[in-house]
């Protein structure tokens, strides 16, 4: 929504104002001179120019600097205190549209069945998808699970210890199972770039849209992933199968968890025999049109970072998993009742921390690469703001800017 700036002069106001006789004008101290006849209350800030482009390319530096403070005249005028319109404008702008909520919006495709001849074909499509494809896919999935468990359980329990052969078989089985999953949604996945190699001292990072990202990548390479512990059948699979791959668990809600996880990550990358580590630095599922800020944990391990960009084609289904709206089971059902899941995976060039670069800068650089490759827009928000409130330090920074600008003119 576009709103335009406006100005007004005080003279038009005074006609509609009635003075309250209780308040008598007092002599003004020299330090705060109010040029009463010439004072203008500018409403400049009250209208705003909020363009789509601004919201899609916000820069946190822009946001936190003195945008809300106008060019300071030498003296402090009353309007600078009473005119809170810049701050109000920002608040109203945030209510009307904000770049953070956009990242998690499921965009439903335009319905195309609104015509007298399109509607029957859509109905036919529904019948085929729900009546024929879905049961077929469920059967394939069930068979896949049976074969998997029939092979996995004996190997897992009978071959005790860290047998190299055992691990190889388990990896192959998991790859096969992921392949079955992808087949159950008729996944059309195109891989670009060199296949990840099993080398020590490397981590893989990718943008995150849904838990199926892991399945799609796992189909090609036996990654060890770090993920949030889930309840239900997903948790059960995590505990039994994925542990054998060397996966690491974390808990968002535990504060001390971070150090423990950082240590586990480091240990994993040192081990030569471990599966390559896959990390989703966004920390949460985003709707595949935007990327939120990457957490620096993956970038301060002192090893090569290989970016992977994943882009889903929404042509048949939107693969974004809105974990607040749907359980993973419902998400899978939705995928299985669509025609296909189409996506592209790009394996990008391994990156190293440059001299003089901080891990945060490194993370931003890799995010730039992934966003450019997958055609995603960058947003300066931390994904965890989905679950937690922003730190009060950011508000304090704005307060500091305002206070300093007022105080510096007070002394003049």
């Amino acid at each position: 929504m576009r709103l335009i700036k406006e100005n007004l002069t005080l003279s038009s106001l005074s006609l509609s104002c009635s003075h309250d006789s209780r308040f008598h004008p007092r002599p003004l101290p020299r330090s705060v001179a109010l040029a009463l006849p010439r004072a203008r209350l500018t409403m400049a800030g009250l209208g705003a120019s909020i363009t789509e482009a601004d919201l899609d390319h916000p820069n946190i530096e822009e946001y936190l600097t003195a945008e809300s403070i106008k060019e300071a005249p030498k003296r402090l005028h009353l309007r600078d205190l009473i005119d809170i319109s810049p701050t109000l404008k920002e608040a109203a702008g945030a209510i009307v549209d904000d770049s953070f909520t956009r990242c998690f919006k499921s965009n439903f495709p335009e319905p195309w069945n609104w015509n007298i001849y399109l509607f029957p074909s859509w109905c036919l499509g529904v019948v085929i998808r729900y009546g024929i494809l879905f049961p077929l896919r469920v059967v394939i999935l069930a068979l896949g699970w049976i074969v998997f468990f029939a092979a996995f359980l004996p190997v897992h329990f009978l071959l005790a210890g860290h047998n190299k052969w055992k691990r190889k078989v388990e990896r192959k089985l998991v790859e096969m199972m992921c392949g079955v999953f992808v087949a159950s949604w008729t996944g059309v996945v195109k891989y670009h770039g060199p296949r990840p190699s099993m080398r020590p001292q490397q981590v893989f990072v990718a943008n995150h849209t849904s838990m199926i990202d892991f399945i799609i990548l796992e189909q090609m390479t036996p990654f060890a992933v770090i993920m949030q512990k889930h309840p239900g059948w997903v948790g059960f699979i995590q505990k039994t199968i994925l542990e054998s791959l060397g996966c690491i668990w974390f808990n968002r809600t535990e504060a001390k968890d971070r150090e423990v996880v950082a240590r586990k990550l480091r240990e994993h990358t040192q081990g030569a025999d471990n599966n390559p580590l896959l990390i989703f630095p966004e920390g949460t599922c985003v709707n595949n049109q935007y990327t939120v800020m990457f957490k620096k944990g993956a970038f301060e391990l002192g090893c090569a970072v290989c970016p992977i960009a994943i882009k889903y084609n929404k042509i048949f289904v939107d693969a974004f998993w809105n974990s607040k709206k749907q359980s993973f089971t419902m998400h899978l059902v939705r995928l299985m009742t669509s025609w296909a899941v189409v996506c592209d995976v790009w394996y990008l060039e391994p990156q190293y921390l440059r001299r003089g670069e901080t891990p945060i800068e490194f993370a931003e650089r890799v995010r730039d690469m992934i966003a450019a490759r997958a055609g995603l827009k960058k947003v300066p928000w931390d994904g965890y703001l989905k679950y937690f409130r922003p730190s009060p330090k950011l508000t304090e920074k704005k307060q500091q800017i305002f206070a300093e600008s007022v105080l510096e003119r007070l002394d003049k």
Partner: protein
Amino acid sequence: MGNASSMLTQYDIEEVQEHCNYLCESSAVSQQEIVALYERFCQLDRSANGFISADEFLSIPEFSLNPLSQRLLKMVDGLNFTDFVAFLSAFSPKASIQHKIESIFRVHDIDGKGRVTLKDLLEVLRDLTGSFMSEEQRKVLCTPCSFNFFCHF
């Protein structure tokens, strides 16, 4: 979109528009804007109650960061759609000056007593400056502002 009926009828739109016109004595919100705002309202009202709770407002990080967010929350908490549009209509370029000033006045006069006192100015300044200005400095700034500018509404 929540489970609440996300279909606005023409009657609903006209009702909301009339309400806003009555409040600000000019047609500040167009029908298209009302439809767009309704989509946003449904997006924010996740629990589909028909109003947006304070918690749902605070889930917008940009709003949470705003120094005046707590004051504004008192004004916008629990607003239904009509009041939501009325609140935002003050920010439209077509809104009258009177309406805009009323809006600023209401933010200062948060307890709705019809007057802005020195205490209100101090509180707003406190929200805007936080711990970066001492109480004495704020008093020095506010005290000379005798209320020639703020009027009874």
